[in-house]
Every structure is written in structure tokens, then in C-alpha cells.
């Protein structure tokens, strides 16, 4: 039917829109503050984006399956507490594994609430977020779990500065992000779980009718968002040398923002893992760039909000055009 592919603005926007936005942002900051373009700063931006990026990668699956996860912020907070409290007791590896296990368990509870109790994802993950944060506060008696830098030097492993020539970079977050995204992409693109996730987001009724294990797939999706939030928690705890229930406050919205900026549709069925990757970098870049030119947090929020609206408006108008002509 559609023999000649139609290649107008819409075609290119769909594929490269988020990347173009990133380049434009970079160019703007380069003009405003030449320091933004130094290799050191770019590497800083990249490693800063890791915390959001890793969770957003998990979030991409949740959104693609037609839901989302509002509890990742709380899971991140709880993870920092679990890590900080258990590292002095059990050592690095057990503490790390325990943290990931807690994240996975929290995610599994989300998945079970959604599939077995039939609670809407918004409510299920909102409530679970509150519960998890409550648990984290109780667990830490409402205070911070500080890690002593000398006694717990190995905690730095997730955020250690490494010198490469004249460049200094936090290598671990970068490697972890790369690993998460490569795995995420392979799973999304080449595995049953990826196809099942997309098919559920595209049409849950059809997925059930076709005999796809809908409940199991959804539970796995939320376990993965939980685990990725925990990985982000490990990095944050390591960077700050502390654990606190409030460290993830508002973080869930960052993860969702990065995902949506990257072109994953909240309506489900359409995901874009690399888009999420770039979305996370874009968020980090805006924060970093505005910091460099001396604008404070309120301007960062304002700018991110505006960019999010602009990107979605372009895509929304595009869909409207497609509807009118298809």
C-alpha cells in the first residue's frame, strides 16, 4: 500500500527529535557559558545523568506496558538507607545485593497489587510509594544514616573519581548506566519479555486473548523498575555517603520526565530505550548548564517544564495531523 515512505518533518522528528533537542540545548549552553563544552564538564553531565537514566530505563518498560511507577523515588530513598545501614555490618557485596533485593521486592509488591488486586497503576504505585517511604523512615528512625568516609571507603566504589589523562570522571555510574541501557535495549528489542511488554501496552485484551502471560509480564516489569531504582539508590548513597528516606523525593517525576522526553508514549505500546537515554542526559544537561550560568533551582524546574511541554506539543500536533490524514 504505502510504497514510497513519506519523509517530511514528522518522519525526522519521530526518529531524531529528542537528539536534535539535546544538540540545540547543548549549543545554547555553549553560547551562554563556554565552560559547558569542556570534556570534563560533558563527562560530569553524563555521569550525573546516570542516576536518572538507570531508573528511567526501567520506567520505560513500565510506561510502555501502559502503566508507570510513582514509587521509584521512595524505592531509591529506601535503597540508600538499606545500603548505608548494612554496609558497616555486612560489607560491600552483601549490602549491595540486599539493597537490590529490597528494590526488587518493592517492585514485586507493585506488580502484585496491579495484577492480582486489580488496582490502577496510579493508585497502586502512589500508595506503595507512601508505604515504602514510611518503612524507610521507621527503619532509620527518621534520621540520616551517615557513612564514615574512612571506615567505609569501599562505599565510594559506585562514585569514585577516576583520572583518565587530564580528565577526571566518576566512571562507575557511567559504566552501570551503559550496562543497564544495553541490557534494556536487548530485552526490549529481542526478547519475549520485550514483545510481551509492548503487546500489553498496545492492547491488553488482545494480549490476554492471544495467551500472553499478562500478569507475569507486568510483575516482571515492576520488579525491574524497582531494581533499577535501587541501582540509582546505590549510586546516590555512594555519592553522598549517606542514606536517608528523603533522598528520592520527587525523583519518580524525573524518571518519568526523561522517559517521556525520549518519545515513550504514556498511552502505552510505544517505547524508545535510546530516547530515554538521551532524555536523561538532556535533563542532566539542563540542570548543569543552568547551574553554570548561575540560575537557581526554580529556573531549572521552569526550563525543564517548558521543554517537556514543547517536545510533547510537537509530537501531539504531529499525531493530530496523522489522525486527520490516516
Amino acid at each position, binding site marked *: 500500500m504505502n510504497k514510497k515512505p513519506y519523509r517530511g518533518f514528522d518522519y525526522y522528528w519521530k526518529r531524531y527529535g529528542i537528539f536534535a533537542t539535546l544538540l540545540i540545548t547543548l549549543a545554547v549552553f555553549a553560547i551562554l557559558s563556554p565552560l559547558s563544552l569542556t570534556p570534563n564538564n560533558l563527562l560530569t553531565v553524563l555521569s550525573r545523568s546516570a542516576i536518572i537514566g538507570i531508573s528511567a530505563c526501567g520506567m520505560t518498560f513500565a510506561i510502555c506496558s501502559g502503566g508507570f511507577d510513582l514509587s521509584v523515588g521512595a524505592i531509591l530513598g529506601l535503597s540508600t538507607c538499606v545500603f548505608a545501614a548494612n554496609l558497616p555490618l555486612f560489607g560491600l557485596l552483601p549490602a549491595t545485593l540486599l539493597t537490590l533485593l529490597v528494590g526488587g521486592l518493592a517492585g514485586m509488591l507493585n506488580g502484585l497489587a496491579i495484577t492480582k488486586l486489580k488496582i490502577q497503576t496510579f493508585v497502586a504505585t502512589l500508595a506503595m510509594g507512601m508505604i515504602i517511604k514510611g518503612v524507610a523512615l521507621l527503619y532509620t528512625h527518621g534520621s540520616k544514616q551517615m557513612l564514615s568516609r574512612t571506615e567505609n571507603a569501599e562505599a565510594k566504589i559506585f562514585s569514585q573519581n577516576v583520572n583518565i589523562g587530564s580528565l577526571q570522571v566518576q566512571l562507575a555510574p557511567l559504566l552501570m548506566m551503559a550496562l543497564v541501557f544495553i541490557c534494556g535495549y536487548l530485552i526490549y528489542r529481542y526478547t519475549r519479555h520485550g514483545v510481551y511488554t509492548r503487546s500489553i501496552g498496545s492492547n491488553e485484551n488482545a494480549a490476554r486473548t*492471544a*495467551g500472553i502471560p499478562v500478569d507475569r509480564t507486568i510483575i516482571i516489569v515492576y520488579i525491574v523498575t524497582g531494581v533499577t531504582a535501587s541501582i540509582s539508590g546505590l549510586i546516590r548513597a555512594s555519592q553522598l555517603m549517606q542514606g536517608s528516606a528523603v533522598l528520592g523525593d520527587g525523583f519518580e517525576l524525573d524518571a518519568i520526565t526523561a522517559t517521556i522526553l525520549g518519545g515513550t508514549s504514556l498511552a502505552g505500546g510505544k517505547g524508545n530505550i535510546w530516547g530515554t537515554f538521551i532524555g536523561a542526559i538532556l535533563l542532566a544537561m539542563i540542570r548543569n548548564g543552568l547551574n553554570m550560568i548561575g540560575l537557581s533551582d526554580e529556573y531549572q524546574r521552569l526550563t525543564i517544564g517548558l521543554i517537556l511541554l514543547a517536545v510533547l506539543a510537537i509530537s501531539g500536533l504531529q499525531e493530530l495531523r496523522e489522525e486527520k490524514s490516516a
Partner: protein
Amino acid sequence: MIAIEAKNIYKSFPGIKALDDVSIAVEKGEVHAIVGENGAGKSTLMKIFGGLYDMDSGSILINGTPCEIKSISGALSHGISVIYQELNLMPSLTIAENIFVSDLPGSLGQVNYRKLNQQTRELMERLSLNAKPTDLVSTLSVSQRQMVEIMKAVSHNSEIIIMDEPTAALNNQEVDTLYNIIHKLKAEGKTILYISHRLREIFDISDRVTVLRDGRYVGTRLTSELDENALVSMMVGRDISQLYKYQPTQPGETVLEVQNLEKEGVFSDVSFSLREGEIVGVAGLMGCGREEIVKSIYGLTRRDGGRVILQGVEKDIKSPSVAIKEGIGFVTEDRKDSGIFALMTIRENISVNILRALSRWGLIRTDMEDELLVSYTSSMNMKYADEMQRIMFLSGGNQQKFILARALASGCKVLIMLEPTRGIDVGAKAEIYSLLSGLAAKGMAILVISSELPEIMSVCYRSLVVFQGQITGNILRDEMDENLIMRCATGNETYFSKGAQI
């Protein structure tokens, strides 16, 4: 007098000419049918009339004056109402609220419910809908909802009412009610444009018929001057008797047997069997429980009791994935709601439930997926651009073939097909029928649940009839007759053909 006239309409979408120099003139007060295969351009033309699409060039004249229809409200202000295939009602609002939602009586934002319900009651009396204005739409049957859509159109006092496949979800009785309404509207001088795939309806209800083919105008005739074969050959350029012929097959061993299936308040004491190479129809009115019966066999819904025996062994089928493993294939009655994955590629739409067999070390082998796609698309004559095309861009007939291919790909021995040709055109219909009889010839046991009696009578070896959750008929092909089936379906008779296995 001409009520609405379209002249030299052109409309193209990326890569396809949807309308290519189409002109049509509709007389005031007539029922004018528009027919054509899927992709012929009928829906596009109606959407241009309804203000949903802009045309590329051409002109529209209403009562002889040229006018531009830019939006849905623009169409309404020109006196055109369109009732689309998909109903656009809000289930949690009442009938009255749904009908007048864009024009609620009252002042200062306050709704005058007395007046609203009074207006609605008058309308309901006029069209003889048996319900209360305050009933929630969610409590209505599909045909009643259709009626509410029609009342919405009438409430705008539109002179021209366009109905796009209004009977797609109606059973025979409900179609009669719709006919009555159309007659009433016609008597009031309204002009009706009627789109349908069901040729019988065209002959039942229309005064004139316009045929479109591949986006082009073929011709307009007085319906009384045509017969079914002549109309079909206008539509497809071929004769219908060439399209599909029943191939008798001799049933073999029993493959599927169900005993005493029951679900409280829905069906009870349902027992029947299905043999290799046998196509068995299941007829019945909407709401008689036949969908629920077969869905419970497939594990899609629960039932209270009864046994399902496959090739002599009793099976506990708790979910569709178990059913597929045991060799039961299923094609849904509602492609859009529970059939296709609209956003996904055609390749994924075929392979999605046999991915385990197509994977190695957990990774899907796209080369094997492609092989699967090619083997089915070539043997089933499916048309598509490339393997990455999204299924939403295919015609209904092609989508249906993909869903059928998905069921077959999992290697089923029993195929349950609901409404095999709902909403697809004559050409594709005949192809589906040929596919089914080809499958039966190879030994597939097939259950066809259909609301269209001609369909059951043309493809089935025998047919079951269900009334209020019980089997009231088991009729062999030779004895099938529309009246007999209807009498069984309405509970006026039970008929079991002699010598027929049930």
C-alpha cells in the same frame, strides 16, 4: 431535488489515492446506499462529508449551494450528522445526557433536567426506543446504544444522516428495528446515506445505490434494477459465484468434546462435539450466551462446571495459554478491542504467541519470524508493504487474516472463530471462507460463531443453535433454512437433525 452533491472529490493519503475524482448526487428523501470493498473509499467520503477529513480538491453542494465543511460542528451546522461505525457514547452518562451533551437545556451552566428528560422522552417516543431517558447508557444493549446514536443525529435536526455500517453489531431482530427507524426518518423527509457490507440490507432498505471501487466512482443504479450478483460484480469486477463455493468434506475422528458446560445465569447443560474436517456453526441471537460458551472453552472466561475433552483426554483449560498449548486456536469477534496489536508490526502480530519456539538463548530470531511471516502471507494471500509495517494501516480483511494466521501458527487442531468476516468486504469474505474450507479439508476442526445466517449457511457442515444458554438446534447442512434457525434461536422450536452427531 438534490440534497447533497459531491463533485470531483480528490483525497490522497501518503502513498495512496483514497478518492480519485469521485462525484455523487443524493436526492432529498431517499435512502442512498454506498457500497464497495474495504479501501474503496466509502468511509473516506463519509468522513469528508462529516468534517473529519479535508479534501484535496473538489466541491460539495448542499441544496444546490456550494459550501465548505471544515469541522464536525461545521457539518452539523450544514445539517449533516454522521453515525460512525464505532459508537461514540459515554457509558456513565444517561441516555438524555448523551443525546444533548453538546446542547444541554438550562441557564447559567445549570442543567434543566426536567426539560432535558422531556425532550429526550419525545424523541424516544418518535423513534420508539423502549427505555427511560435517565437510564445509563452502560445498561443498554448494543442495538439500543445504536438507537441512541441515531437519536443524537435526529436531535440536531439534521436533514442528512449518514450511517456507516450501522448493523455491524446488530442481530436480525435489531436490524428490523433499525429499518423501521430508517423508514420513519425517510417519511419525515430526511435523506439517508447508508454504508454497509451486507448486501442483503442494501436491497432491503435502499432506493438507490452508488458503487465505489479503489477510490473511483463506478456507478449509481436504482436498487430495484439490480440483483446481488450484478451488484457484487460492480464492486469487485467479478461474479460472486466465482468467489466462493462450498467444498463438502467428510468429517473424521472426534477432536473436541464438551459435556455439560454451565455457568450460572449464562448457559447450562451445553454438550457437543467437533470432528476433524468439520466446520460447525453456532447461531443465536445476541446475548444468547454462545460467545461465553466458546470463550470458556478457550479459557478466556470462567465457568461453573462441565468437562472439555480433547482427543479423548479430559483437559483443564484455565487460561488461553493452556488452550493454545492443547491445540485450540481462537479468533476474536472484535479485532480492534481484542485482536490486533495496533501499534506493533505485522511480523510481531503473527509471531507474538509462539515466540518461545522462535527464540534461541532467550533472544528472538527475526529470521525465523520472517520465514513464518512469509509462509503465511503467501499461502493466505495477504497484502502488506513490508514486515515492519504497523498492522493498524492494513484493511480489516487483511488484519483478520493476520489474526487467523496467528492462531494457526501455534499449531492448533481446533479453531474457534467468532464473527469471521465482521466488517470486512466481499472479496476478503470469500477468501476467508475458502481458507476455512481449505483448513477443514486438511483435517482442522472448526467452530464458527456468526451473527450472519447466510455465512453459517454457506460455510458450515452443520450448525448448532443457542437460545438462552441452551442448545436448541443441531441442523445438518441439507436441512439448514433461515426460518428454521431463527425459530430455534428464538426458542420457538427445538430441532435436531436425524443421524447428526451432536
